[in-house]
């Protein structure tokens, strides 16, 4: 059942992105930035967590979850250290996505040749 909801919710978030591409004529960079900010704002109001419980990977795989986990890391650390924790804890939860992108980007650059 959770697979179906992951499919539907993830698909709908992609449709929002597609509408921003086609109807509002935004570049992919603008679209993705907006979605990340949207994810962060949603988590600020505590709305993203219920979505993850409901849709699983449908909410964690789209880029909106990046904003969500940034806020999450910052808030978790802020509870311990106050305002300073906002800066120190920022990447605590998100590190996997960015480290994976950097590491595999480097590996890709070493092993693959540019095409076309």
């Amino acid at each position, binding site marked *: 059942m959770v697979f179906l909801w992951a499919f539907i919710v993830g698909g709908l978030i992609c449709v929002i992105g597609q509408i921003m591409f086609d109807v509002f004529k935004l570049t*992919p960079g603008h679209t993705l930035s907006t979605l990340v900010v949207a994810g962060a704002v949603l988590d600020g109001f505590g709305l993203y967590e219920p979505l993850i419980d409901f849709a699983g990977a449908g909410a*964690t795989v789209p880029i909106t979850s990046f904003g969500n986990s940034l806020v999450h890391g910052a808030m978790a650390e802020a509870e311990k250290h106050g305002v300073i924790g906002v800066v120190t804890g920022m990447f605590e939860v998100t590190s996997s*996505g960015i480290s994976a992108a950097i590491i595999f980007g480097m590996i890709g650059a070493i092993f693959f040749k540019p095409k076309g």
Partner: protein
Amino acid sequence: MSNKKKKNLTPTQQQYQDFANKREVKRPVFKNCIKAFLVGGTICAIGQGISTFYMYFFDFTEQTVGNPTVATLIFITMLLTGFGVYDRMAQFAGAGTAVPVTGFGNAVISAAIEHRTEGFVLGVGGNMFKLAGSVILFGVFSAFIIALVKTILIEWGGL
């Protein structure tokens, strides 16, 4: 094009703008949305499969399983990007491949591969976050503002 910009153009240029707008191919919005829905949904369903695998065989909880899932998806993206499959998928699916985290991975990895001819330090290192940098910048900055406001409200507002 905004009206302010239009005023600075000569009449001939304005005519050309109107002409170009009329001839511009209408984007098949509905069809594109269906494609984005199907492909994006499939990527998320695959992600759910990976999540289930990690929850079943390693002790991750539903809240923490997102991290290894994202890393695995980016690894798969590296292979697809390296073999040139991802570009073809992206042409078909539009936002369906751009919005999931695989699109973020693709932006980093394709920039890294593309610029390796300029050397590893200036080429790969300097250009890796050329496209994905904006996502990180706005994500981090908005998260900073939100977390700051929330923390201040909690500490001094007794929220």
